[in-house]
Structures are given as structure tokens and as C-alpha cells.
């Protein structure tokens, strides 16, 4: 008889967007990995909207992809509607957003994790962690079965003590219709974690055949979309349109007249919702002067009637939801297939995490995704891959995988989480990234693929391709710098046709391309111009030339950050030994235990004086250690 050894290097609890990336990264780096989900049919479910990407989130998707993650690839395979947001703005704030066929997305991810070597999948509810001497040793499922684990990554999303609200009804669920995870939530609290409660919600799903699309403004997919993943060569051909609708005064009246029935306003909901994602009740009550709010209808897939009604999110009783939906022009006959609802859930204040996403309290325990107080599939995926990589590196004591705020959006997010903590669901915004001019979706591979390759998560062949492209970008720029045109009627006429001022002296193609109104291909026919058939190469040449000044200044600005990030604060640093530092600051610093002087400076309420004082102590300490010499 063979003895079943349920023992793993890495155990991941929760197969959502964070969990899948964490498990895949771990398995691909060679760790024996187990991924749990309460229900295997809801692996990688898109619980809310059917889209991946969007402003600042597309950067995360591209970064996950550059590190060998799966989200971008599967989105490319399953997307049916494509938009480039902020297309009229500069490249740093442009973002790709793709609507997917939800079921196809889920099934494709499910197949990917199922087929991954080293990765085991198990349907079970994890009831508790097994912790020995402050170190995680494994988990117990609801049936009492023990699984040994060297590292555990918890990616439970909204499932910890999840409570779904529709009007006055409250149901313990991790998502409408699914079991909540209560045991694990309570155990985390009893282990000593500082937990909080948040609230999110999702709008109703309507039946397409009951919507009068003919009276709504239709938005078609962009004609020539670019994929998320550098590995994607072609996208699906089926397309689904979206539609714009709007609420009206009648809608708002229904809400105002019945606001007492909303758990948000009756006091039933205690969790904190996001200011950027208010429900319709909030919008109506807070922006009373507005007579209309936008509604966007998005198909949830090719083979379903379900339509996501963005903008109609609320937590009112179903009969009122009907009234609200039907007050909107085009929806007067609409049938609700899934009611809107609000959900409250527990999260762990992320200042209790190290920058690797390992908890400070329990060694070997990592948290990623919504449990850290974030929202969004992309935010979850980015944390998932980050935690997965670091958990594996920690198995062998290898140095952790940490990026700084000038290298990636994911680093901005994780630094914000572990340094500042959260007081509302955290979503990525481009304005959170102080170095956003150099953290673009278009250059994510250039920034990170090398790291992905080192970690063994990116194919060498792909990396070599990228190196070739890099070379062609440099050559292309050099060529434009060395090719110049003299003023001539011919040339100036051409410039005039591009609405560009004439030249009066010999000018390089490089300087011409710096002009706002001139694109790379506009220079076709100018002496020295060469065609670029590689879309990526061409775009990089354009961006690097056009925005050269800003890019240079932004890099300049990163120097100070890099210097401060280089100065590590020893893990055993005693803040009570800093003379004159107030008890409040000492306590805060001891709790957050910043890893670097840079991180310390970003803690809310920190003073410049305190940073200098700690800096001086560290320098002194280094000097005394140096004087003593090696032991």
C-alpha cells in the first residue's frame, strides 16, 4: 500500500486571480505546489465586471506578463471587445482594456493551472493554518485533513467572513451563491492579525434579449487592437459591442424615496467602501445636483444572455432594483438575471506585511490580493505573482524579489500597501506612480522581462527576441540622428501637408520626429528614413524621441529614490534608541519596521527630522561595527 504524502513546498489558498498567478509562478519555478479552491468551477472567476485592464491596471497586466504571468495571455485568448483608453493622451497614461468572455476566461485559466507541471489542484475549504513556533507548517481542510506546507500563500479575496447584502437580507457568502470562509478568518484574528472590514459591490446582470439596444448609443471595439502579452501573435476575431445608457431623475427619485432600505444607509453595512467606486445610492445622495449618471452595458460573453450593467450597482431590495433598472431608457422591459449586491468581508491591514508580502507575525505565511485590502483582478494578479515568486525564493534563502517605485506599478502598489496601509479598497491609479512617465504599458517588457527570465519564468527565446528588438530600437534612433534633410520646397511642402512648420536649416529626422504632429511613418520619403515593420520597435523609437526630455528628467528624479532605497534599516533596529523621537513615532516605526530609509520616509506622518535622526544612528552603527571589525 502506498502512503499518501500530502506535503508541499507551497500551498495557495484560493484560486482567484491572485491565487492562480501565485500557484503558477511557484510551480514554474520548480516548487511542488498545491492550489485550493472551495469550488473548482469558480477558479479564476471574474466576480464583477467582464474586463481586464483599464487605466493603470493595464500596466499591472503587462508587468505580470513580462514576469511570465498568465493574466495577459488568457485575456488575449478570450477577449471580445478592445479599447485603448486615453488614446488621445501621451503614452504614459494610455491603457488597454479588454472585455472577455467570462466563462471562457475562467475555463482557459482552469485548464492552464490543471496542465501545469508541479501544480496540484484540490477542491476543499481550508479551515485553519497549522503554525509551529511562529512558522507556518501546513493547513487543515474542513474535513480535518492535514496538508504539510513550507510556505502558505493566502489569496481568499472577499471570502473571509463574507456577508452579502441585498436590501435587508444578509447571507454569509464569499460571493453570491458561494460559501464564505469563516474558520480561517477567525483564526487569523486569533493569531493576532489586525483585521478590518471592507465593502464592495457588483451591479445587476440583465438579460440581453430584454434590452432595447436600438435606443442606446453603441460603442464598438477598437479596430486594430494590440495584445496584452508579448507571447500573443493573434487575437480572437469575434467582437461584441458595448452600449451607453444613463440614469434619469426618475431613477434618482426611486433611490432617494427608498434610501432607508439600503443597507449602506440603514447602518447594516459597517465595512468601508471605495470612494472611487461608489454605488448608485452613494452617487445620487452625494452628487444631488446631477440629474443623470452614466450606465454602460457590457456583454459577459459570446454564449450568454448576461449583460453587465456598469453604473447600476446598488444593494437595494430586488423589487426596487427592478424599478431602478426599468427607469433607464432602453431597459424598461429588462429582466434582471442576477441582482446587484453589496458584500462585506474581512481584510488584513497590509502594514503587517513585509515588502515580499510575507507576514511579519508568522514566518512563511504570505498574503496576496483582496485580503490585503485591494480591489481589482489586476491588483490581485500582480500581488499573486509577487508573493509566489518570493515564497519560492525564500525556500532556499535566496534574496527576495523586490522592485522599487521607479521600476514598476506593482512595486508602487505593494510599497503603498505595506508602508501606508489602506483605509478603503486600494485600486491602482496612474497618479499613484510618481515615476509614471517611465512606467508605461508599452515598455513593461523592457523594464521587467530580464527579471522574469532570471527567475526562470520567461522563455529564453522570448527574451532573446526582446534583446533583438532593443538593438533595433537603438539602431533606429541612431539612424534618425545621423540622417538630416536640407530645407527645400519639396521638403517644406511635405511638412506643410503634415501641418508642420517649414525648416530653414539642415535638420535631422530625429528633430523632426520630436515634433508633436509628426509620426514615424510621416517621414516616409525623407532621405535616410527606413521602414519599421515591427510595431513595438517603431512605437519605442517614437516615444523615446518624442518624450526624451521628460523621460530624462524622470530618470533624474529616480536617483534620489534609489539612494534612499539603498540604505537598509537593520531588521533589529531599535527605534526606542533614537534620542528625542516621540513615543508615537517610535511605536509606528516599530510596527511598520520599514526595510529602507526610503520606505521610512513614506510612512504617513513621518517627519524629515525623524528620518535624518535614524539615518545618523544607522551610520553611527555601521561605523562602530566597522571599527570592531569582523567577529
Amino acid at each position, binding site marked *: 500500500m502506498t502512503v499518501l504524502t500530502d506535503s508541499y513546498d507551497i500551498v495557495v489558498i484560493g484560486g482567484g486571480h491572485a491565487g492562480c498567478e501565485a500557484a503558477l509562478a511557484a510551480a514554474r519555478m520548480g516548487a511542488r505546489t498545491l492550489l485550493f479552491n472551495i469550488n473548482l468551477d469558480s477558479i479564476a472567476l471574474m466576480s464583477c465586471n467582464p474586463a481586464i485592464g483599464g487605466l493603470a491596471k493595464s500596466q499591472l497586466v503587462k508587468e505580470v506578463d513580462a514576469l511570465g504571468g498568465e493574466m495577459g495571455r488568457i485575456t488575449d485568448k478570450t477577449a471580445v471587445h478592445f479599447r485603448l483608453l486615453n488614446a488621445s493622451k501621451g503614452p504614459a497614461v494610455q491603457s488597454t482594456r479588454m472585455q472577455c468572455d467570462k466563462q471562457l476566461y475562467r475555463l482557459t485559466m482552469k485548464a492552464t493551472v490543471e496542465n501545469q507541471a508541479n501544480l496540484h489542484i484540490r477542491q476543499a475549504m481550508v479551515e485553519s493554518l497549522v503554525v509551529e513556533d511562529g512558522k507556518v507548517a501546513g493547513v487543515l481542510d474542513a474535513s480535518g485533513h492535514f496538508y504539510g506546507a513550507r510556505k502558505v500563500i493566502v489569496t481568499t479575496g472577499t471570502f473571509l467572513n463574507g456577508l452579502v447584502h441585498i436590501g435587508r437580507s444578509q447571507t454569509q457568502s464569499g460571493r453570491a451563491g458561494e460559501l464564505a470562509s469563516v474558520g480561517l478568518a477567525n483564526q487569523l484574528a486569533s493569531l493576532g492579525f489586525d483585521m478590518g472590514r471592507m465593502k464592495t459591490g457588483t451591479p445587476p446582470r440583465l438579460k440581453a434579449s430584454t434590452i432595447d439596444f436600438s435606443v442606446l448609443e453603441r460603442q464598438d471595439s477598437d479596430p486594430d487592437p494590440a495584445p496584452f502579452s508579448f507571447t500573443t501573435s493573434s487575437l480572437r476575431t469575434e467582437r461584441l459591442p458595448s452600449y451607453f445608457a444613463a440614469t434619469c431623475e426618475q431613477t434618482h427619485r426611486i433611490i432617494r424615496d427608498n434610501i432607508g432600505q439600503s443597507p449602506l444607509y440603514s447602518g447594516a453595512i459597517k465595512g468601508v467602501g471605495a470612494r*472611487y467606486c461608489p454605488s448608485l445610492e452613494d452617487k445620487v445622495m452625494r452628487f444631488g445636483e446631477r440629474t443623470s449618471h452614466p450606465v454602460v452595458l457590457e456583454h459577459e460573453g459570446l454564449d450568454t444572455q448576461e449583460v453587465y450593467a456598469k453604473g447600476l450597482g446598488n444593494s437595494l431590495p430586488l423589487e426596487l432594483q427592478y424599478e431602478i433598472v426599468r427607469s433607464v431608457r432602453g431597459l424598461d422591459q429588462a429582466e434582471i438575471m442576477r441582482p446587484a449586491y453589496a458584500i462585506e468581508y474581512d481584510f488584513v491591514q497590509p502594514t503587517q506585511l513585509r515588502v515580499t508580502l510575507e507576514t511579519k507575525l508568522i514566518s512563511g505565511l504570505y498574503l496576496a490580493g483582496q485580503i490585503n485590502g485591494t480591489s481589482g483582478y489586476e491588483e490581485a494578479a500582480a500581488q499573486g505573482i509577487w508573493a509566489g515568486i518570493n515564497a519560492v525564493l525564500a525556500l532556499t534563502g535566496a534574496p527576495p524579489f523586490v522592485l522599487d517605485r521607479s521600476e514598476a506599478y506593482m512595486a508602487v502598489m505593494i510599497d503603498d500597501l505595506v508602508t501606508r496601509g489602506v483605509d478603503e479598497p486600494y485600486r491602482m491609479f496612474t*497618479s499613484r506612480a510618481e515615476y509614471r512617465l517611465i512606467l508605461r504599458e508599452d515598455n513593461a517588457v523592457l523594464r521587467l522581462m530580464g527579471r522574469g527570465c532570471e527567475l526562470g519564468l520567461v522563455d529564453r527565446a522570448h527574451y532573446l527576441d526582446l534583446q533583438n528588438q532593443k538593438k533595433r530600437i537603438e539602431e533606429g534612433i541612431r539612424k534618425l540622428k545621423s540622417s538630416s534633410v536640407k530645407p527645400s520646397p519639396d521638403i517644406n511642402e511635405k511638412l506643410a501637408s503634415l501641418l508642420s512648420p517649414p525648416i530653414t536649416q539642415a535638420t535631422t529626422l530625429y528633430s523632426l520626429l520630436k515634433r508633436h504632429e509628426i509620426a514615424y511613418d510621416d517621414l516616409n520619403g525623407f532621405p535616410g528614413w527606413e521602414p519599421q515593420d515591427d510595431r513595438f520597435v517603431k512605437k519605442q523609437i517614437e516615444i523615446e524621441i518624442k518624450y526624451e526630455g521628460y523621460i530624462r528628467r524622470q530618470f533624474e528624479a529616480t536617483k534620489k529614490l534609489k539612494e534612499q532605497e539603498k540604505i537598509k534599516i537593520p531588521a533589529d533596529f531599535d527605534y526606542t534608541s533614537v534620542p528625542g523621537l*516621540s513615543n508615537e513615532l517610535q511605536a509606528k516605526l516599530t510596527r511598520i519596521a520599514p526595510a529602507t530609509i526610503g520606505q521610512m520616509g513614506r510612512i504617513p506622518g513621518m517627519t524629515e527630522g525623524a528620518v535624518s535622526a535614524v539615518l545618523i544612528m544607522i551610520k553611527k552603527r555601521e561605523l562602530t561595527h566597522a571599527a570592531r571589525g569582523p567577529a
Partner: protein
Amino acid sequence: MVTKTETIAAIATPSGTAGVGLIRVSGPLAPELAQRLFRPAHSNCTWQSHHCYHGDIIAADGKTVLDEVLATLMRKPRSFTGEDVLEISCHGNPLILQNIMEQFLALGCRPARPGEFSERAYLNGRMDLSQAEALAAMICAQSAKALQLELSQLKGSLGNSIDELRSLLIDGLANLEAAIDFTEDVSDKEIPAVPGQILQAAAGVELLLSTYRQARLITQGIRVVIVGKPNTGKSSLLNRLAGKKKAIVTDIPGTTRDLITETITLDGISIHLTDTAGIRPPRDDIEKEGISLVRQQMEQADILLLLFDGSQPLTDEDYRILEQSKKRDCQILTVVNKRDLAPAWDNRLPGHPLHGRRLLDLSAKFGDGVEDLKKALSDLAGGTDAPAEGGMISRLRHKLALEKALACLKAAQNCLATGQSSEFAAFELSEALNALDEITGKKISEDVLSRIFSGFCIGK
């Protein structure tokens, strides 16, 4: 948590006998020591924060009365250092002060290092950087106006002005960022093309920058350099203004070879007077060196005081000095000495080299007209102006930061005016904010997003 923060104590009043003396104690032990060493005269002493109690200081033996004092406990964080602070006002005998200090030291306090109270205040965020600088400067301010300026900065006048500018920029940034990050929620119609806040902030920065010269004059004083050919009475004038005999006066031209300086105060402003060697073709090396020093001084002067002899016809040497002074970018006072003697020339005549110039006639020897000169000096120094209300900048560090901020604001305006995508203007605004934050040591952080959420309706 066990704290290791030491409690510090110091005699805050200058050494020597005085009417009253002050001992200041800051740190976690302060409340406990107050209870231990102070015996209140009345039973209603509850050690309410910021209340002054009357009583005795008792030695550690619990019996000996050391002095009758007033004691005030200021509880954290509303104290100068942000820690618990105890202040004891006692009689100003150095022996009493020393005795009381010894009690505090015996009970666990450590003598404070110079400036340590301020250091703790800064460390704990009770003062921003501009306030800490002002405090340091205030303690050694040399004139009433300088004191007033530093005090207003210590009370946060500059910090407040900077905060107002920050607030404008954060509003402007919120407008720009809303259009970037919430392009689906916020229509471009809701966003002004060039946020008025940028223009307003730029004007504010310019206003602050414009105070630099005057603030500099107030804090550093004004350098007045007296120049003229030999024997016009420069040294006599210096002595007259200083009210004492500082420079040697003789009838021999070229007596003054070195620079003689003296500081006087006019209307609360320090005036640094410099007497110089008379300018003429030098007769020897020492005089040559002296004259070259004069030229250096002329370079650094805030005000050049050109002195002519009214009793002698003007010579080529006078004309040369006049020409040199015209090349200098500073204020000029033209003064004619020796009005006690018969005048040798009249500048009202057309064609006179000094025609049309306002002249100040005086007699350095007898003092006639010297008051007029003092008034003219004071007027030029802006001595009668009150310091600007919105704060003034007197430090080069602040000036450089503001200039950087202004350049970024102009660049931001230009970005928007030329139709560039708004993230570039936003970049310039963040850089401007960083520059402003160099002055006070604050950070932008979440401010921008909060403004966006409070102003626009956003969400799915």
C-alpha cells in the same frame, strides 16, 4: 512599549543674577518629576496642561524648600518639543537655579545639549523646516525688523504661504489627474483648460520671490559703501553717522587706506557702513591695495554713497568715480560734503556733470544735514515698510526652491497652452510641489486623490 527616550533639563535663562530664572524639562519623566519636586501652595493643583501653579520646589529629601516658584506642565503633544514639558520659573539667583537643576539631574534627567529642545521639536514634527530655521535665526537676530521677520516665520507665516500654494497646486493637479485617471467618469467639459490654480500659484510664488531682496536687507542689514576721491570727508561722515570716532581724520589726502566698517541701526534695520580709501592714482603699494579693495566693496554694496567736496571744483577723479558708479546695479545716494564752506559749484547749471541729480548737502564736520542723510538711507532700505503679510523669504535656499517651482509652473502653463497631453503638465506641477516641499519638508502623498474624490463623481 518601554521607551528609552531620555528626559532632558536645562536652565533656559542666561547665566548671571537676574530677577527670574527658568528651568525647562522635556521628556517622559516631566509629569512625574513635577509631582515629586513641586509642593503646591493651594490644594487645587491638578496639573492641568498649560496651567501655571504656585508653590515650592522641595529637595529630594522631601523637606528642604529650595525656592518659591511657578510651575507649568505642558502635556504632549501640545508642547514645544511635542513631549511632556515642565517649566519652573524661580528666582534668578544662579545658586537657586543650580540647586533645582541638581534635583532634576539626580532624579534621572540629563542636561540638554545646546539646541536640543528645538531639535526634538523638529524631530517630532512640531516645527517644519522653515520654522526651525527661523527659530535659529531669531535667537541671534540683530535688529528689531529682523526679529519681527523671523518671529513671523517661526509662527508659520512662510509655512502658511507655502501651504496655500501647495493647496492651489494640489487642486490644479487634481483637475489634471481626474481627466487622466478617470477619463471614463469625468468628461473633459468638467476640467478647465488651464487650471486657474496654476496661474494663481505662479503669481503667489512670484510675490514671495519679490520679498527676497527686502527680507535679505532686513535680516542681513544693508551694506552702505562710502566712496569718493581723497579728502572729501568720508571718514568724518562715517564717524558722524556712527556717533563716535571710529576712523582717523586728518587733512592729509589718503589717510584712510584700509576699510573701516561700523554698524548702526536706523528704524530697526542694521546698516553696515564701510569707509574706503579715497580713489585716485595710487602713490604706493599700500594705497594701491586699498583702492582695489574699494572696487571690491563697490561690487558688494547695496547702497553706494558717493561723496563729493562742495567747496572744491570737481576734478577728473570725481568724474571717474561717477562713471564707475553708473556701471553698478545698486542704489546710489549722492552726497555733497563741506556745506559749512562756500560752495564751489552748482549742479543746477545746465551741462554740469551732476545736473539733475538729487543731492544731499551736509557738513560731516558740524553735523548739519546728517539727519536728512539718515532718513534717505532708511527710505532706500525700506525701513518704514512693514514686512509683507504673506511671509517673506530671506534664505537663499528658499529662493532657489521657489525659482525652481516657478520654472516648473511656467513649463506647466506652456504644456497646457500648447495642447500637450495633461500628464506632462501634471509632471511639472508635481516637480513644483516637490520644490515647495523642500522649504517646509512636507510630502504630497495621497492629497491629490483625495481632492479628486471630493470634487468629481467617480465610479462604476
